[in-house]
């Protein structure tokens, strides 16, 4: 009801109505169209079975089946799904190359057009388009509706923009894969769900996208599904995400049960009814946050993301770095009205974010797989974002999300370029060495100069070296933490007995430490990959080479964005010193959405003096630089053995290299016991034994036992029958006579 009213009112008065923003529904629809086309193309190579399957099942195999043969390790052929080196271009590859990236480019164009309209119109209220009633049940009215405001606009631009670049990159990266249309259909599907996620006007619609991106992620991680490891990784990702979704669901139930609405406008309007700082709102926020930890790979649900690197590298770039994993950050920013009411929940978010940031960074120090390093780096950076939105610096969190999308996509695509080169080299020589292990790389700058330069830019950005984008965004988060340690609603609250202010200082410290580690492990990655001698192998070196333009082009664009991304939100303290341009553009842009929530948290916060702020920035920069120097000084790429010659680390280093054995511990304590209990106790004992055996078949057996006893009396010897008859008569007559 409320939503309809708002929509009706909005339709008449909203500044965006009647503009190109009316076409916003086309945004998710375009990738959906791409998904359908590509999906059909991918299935069109399949052949229909015979009219009667069992009649011919063992006779002549059909044409499609004939192409497939048993795959053992090292031998590849067939129509898709197995290892990606099978060079067999799909017959619809050309069409797919147009449709797949095409829909994204069009969508990005549309998004830019809408964005410009929005900038000029500067609406204060969200623009809501309501299409039809999704779940109308009594007082539960959930509409299929899209909400366009500045927050979703930012996400739309990132998703379609970075997404389009990654799609283009994929054209080169995946061109020889037999599952090419399938790949693009999944990728389009992902973008569709991601856009539903960011554009949904209420929690359930958002949840559609939320689970949908999880599904696409599942499908893409397991894209080369004939490898058990990949399929396992996909499954793990989906299930861990579902654990998070459980929290999200419960949060929705609680919202509906307590305030009766689930759309963002309604929740924002009624959030105060829950009571500021009440246990109720804290619980709701914590359940939402549980959902976020799943999607955004935070402690304790981060475990799926490193495994997710099993997917094709562009997928890692798009889903597991730039967009999907940031959905948790988006969700918290979207629910800012709720989180700002609960300092405890906000602090929890910040603490978890900070701990994750440093925890993942330490693991990143000891990884040899280039994508694993980036994966832990992503977890760590996501931790930063959560620190940002946790301390109520929603703008900073979102800003870091955007810049991170640029440089992390660049890093991943760059690593993809490296892996592609390595892979081609090993494929040419039929070597079975690991194309992703940094110990097999080294000195690649000679072969991949463009990638080398661009990846260094991204590395510096993520380490926080000015004036690259990462510097501004990361610094803003740390600055916000520092600024809120005094007087804000967070500082006055207590979290598990610790005063909020103290906690925020600790978080700030952790943030700095993580920044240091980030600089170290990123430099380490660059050193081992691009510097020093080449460890790829003498024969293989001849085949190393730069990727085609269709792959390097997106890299260059991302590189430019990485460099200039910081201009989006120049801090005041910087623009005061250096007149680089208008300051805090991003903040002003997002103000209508998160401004009031931010204000609620910073209400009593004391202003940080510009000098202090400058000092903080200086400290952060110095730490980053020191990190890089330490890495360069300590690590000697020349001394690294090749992967097959390496000796496993021992002691604490070994523990870190094995990711603190978290996966193994979970396997032992959760996964295996659940399975064993379900199998041995629930199924075999309770179901088959007690219920079926004892009760059901037991009662049948009881009846049969009585029957058996009766049948034993039937000896078949008529003499006995006669005897018993006569004795019976004797007894009966006796009773009668003696009565």
């Amino acid at each position, binding site marked *: 009801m409320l939503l309809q009213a708002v929509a009706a009112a909005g339709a008449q008065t909203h500044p965006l109505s009647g503009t190109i923003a009316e076409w916003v529904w086309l945004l998710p629809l375009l990738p959906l169209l791409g998904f359908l086309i590509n999906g059909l193309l991918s299935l069109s190579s399949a052949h229909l079975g015979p009219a009667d399957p069992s009649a011919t099942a063992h006779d002549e195999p059909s044409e499609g089946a004939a192409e497939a043969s048993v795959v053992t390790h090292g031998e590849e052929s067939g129509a898709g799904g197995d290892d990606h080196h099978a060079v067999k271009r799909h017959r619809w590859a050309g069409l797919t190359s147009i449709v797949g990236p095409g829909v994204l480019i069009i969508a990005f164009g549309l998004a830019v057009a809408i964005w410009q309209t929005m900038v000029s119109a500067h609406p204060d209220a969200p623009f809501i388009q309501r299409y039809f009633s999704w779940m109308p049940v009594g007082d539960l009215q959930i509409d299929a509706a899209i909400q366009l405001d500045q927050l979703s606009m930012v996400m739309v631009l990132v998703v379609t923009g970075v997404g389009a670049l990654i799609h283009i990159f994929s054209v080169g990266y995946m061109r020889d894969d037999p599952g090419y249309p399938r790949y693009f259909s999944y990728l389009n599907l992902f973008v569709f769900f991601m856009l539903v996620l960011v554009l949904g006007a209420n929690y359930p619609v958002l949840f559609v996208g939320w689970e949908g991106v999880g599904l696409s992620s599942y499908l893409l991680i397991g894209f080369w599904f004939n490898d058990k490891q990949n399929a396992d990784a996909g499954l793990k990702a989906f299930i861990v995400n579902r654990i998070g979704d459980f929290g999200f669901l419960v949060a929705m139930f609680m919202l509906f049960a307590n305030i009766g609405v689930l759309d963002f406008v309604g929740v924002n309007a009624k959030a105060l009814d829950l009571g500021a700082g009440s246990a109720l709102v804290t619980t709701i926020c914590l359940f939402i946050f549980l959902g976020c930890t799943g999607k955004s790979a935070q402690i304790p649900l981060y475990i799926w993301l490193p495994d997710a690197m099993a997917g094709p590298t562009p997928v890692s770039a798009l889903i597991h770095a730039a967009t999907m994993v940031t959905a948790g950050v988006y969700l918290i920013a979207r629910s800012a009205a709720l989180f700002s009411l609960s300092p405890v929940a906000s602090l929890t978010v910040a603490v978890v974010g900070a701990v994750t940031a440093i925890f993942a960074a330490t693991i990143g120090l000891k990884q040899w797989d280039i994508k694993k390093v980036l994966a832990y780096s992503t977890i760590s950076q996501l931790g930063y974002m959560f620190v940002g939105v946790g301390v109520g610096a929603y703008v900073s969190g979102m800003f870091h999300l955007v810049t991170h999308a640029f440089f992390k996509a660049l890093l991943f695509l760059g690593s993809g370029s490296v892996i592609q080169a390595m892979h081609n080299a090993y494929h040419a020589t039929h070597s079975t060495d690991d194309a992703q292990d940094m110990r097999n790389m080294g000195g690649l700058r000679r072969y991949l100069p463009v990638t080398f330069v661009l990846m260094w830019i991204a590395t510096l950005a993520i380490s926080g070296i000015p004036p690259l984008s990462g510097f501004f965004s990361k610094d803003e988060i740390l600055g916000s933490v520092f600024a809120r340690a005094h007087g804000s609603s967070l500082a006055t609250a207590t979290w598990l007995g610790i005063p909020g202010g103290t906690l925020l200082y600790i978080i700030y410290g952790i943030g700095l430490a993580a920044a240091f580690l980030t600089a170290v492990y990123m430099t380490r990655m660059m050193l081992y990959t691009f510097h020093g001698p080449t460890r790829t192998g003498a024969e293989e070196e001849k085949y190393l080479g730069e990727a085609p333009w269709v792959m390097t082009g997106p890299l260059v664009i991302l590189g430019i964005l990485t460099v200039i991304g910081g201009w989006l939100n120049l801090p005041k303290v910087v623009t005061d010193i250096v007149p680089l341009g208008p300051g805090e553009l991003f903040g002003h842009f997002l103000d209508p959405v998160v401004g009031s929530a931010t204000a609620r948290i910073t209400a009593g916060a004391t202003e940080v003096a510009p000098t202090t702020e400058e000092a903080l920035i200086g400290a952060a920069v110095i730490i980053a630089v020191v990190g890089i120097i330490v890495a360069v000084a300590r690590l000697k790429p020349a001394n690294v053995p090749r992967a097959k010659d390496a000796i496993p680390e021992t002691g604490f280093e070994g523990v870190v290299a094995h990711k603190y054995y978290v996966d193994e511990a979970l396997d032992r304590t959760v996964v295996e016991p659940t399975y064993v209990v379900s199998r041995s106790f629930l199924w075999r004992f309770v179901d088959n034994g007690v219920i079926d055996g004892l009760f059901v078949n037991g009662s049948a057996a009881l009846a049969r036992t009585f029957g058996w006893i*009766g*049948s034993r009396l039937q000896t*078949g*010897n*008529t*003499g006995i029958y*006669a005897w018993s008859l006569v004795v019976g008569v004797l007894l009966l007559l006796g009773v009668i006579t003696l009565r």
Partner: protein
Amino acid sequence: MLAESLALTAALFIIGVIGVLVHRNAIIIFMCVELMLTAVNLTFVAFSRFYGTAGQVFVVFVMTVSAAEAAVGLAIIIAIFRHRQTINLQDINLLKG
């Protein structure tokens, strides 16, 4: 003479019962059954002096039944003997459950 008749009936009947209990030869057991039937006939006849001729009619029926029974029973015994070469009831346990 009613009491004497009934006593005799009872005695004959019981002798028949004892015969069934102690014998294993199917034919002798059969004869014992005939004895029991006959004993019952005596009751009917004895009572017919006091209750009218209906008793005697019943004797006719009993005789018919026992004749039929003898015919079928003996046929069964022959059949069993052909099959098993014995009419000892202890060796015949087709009814065993």
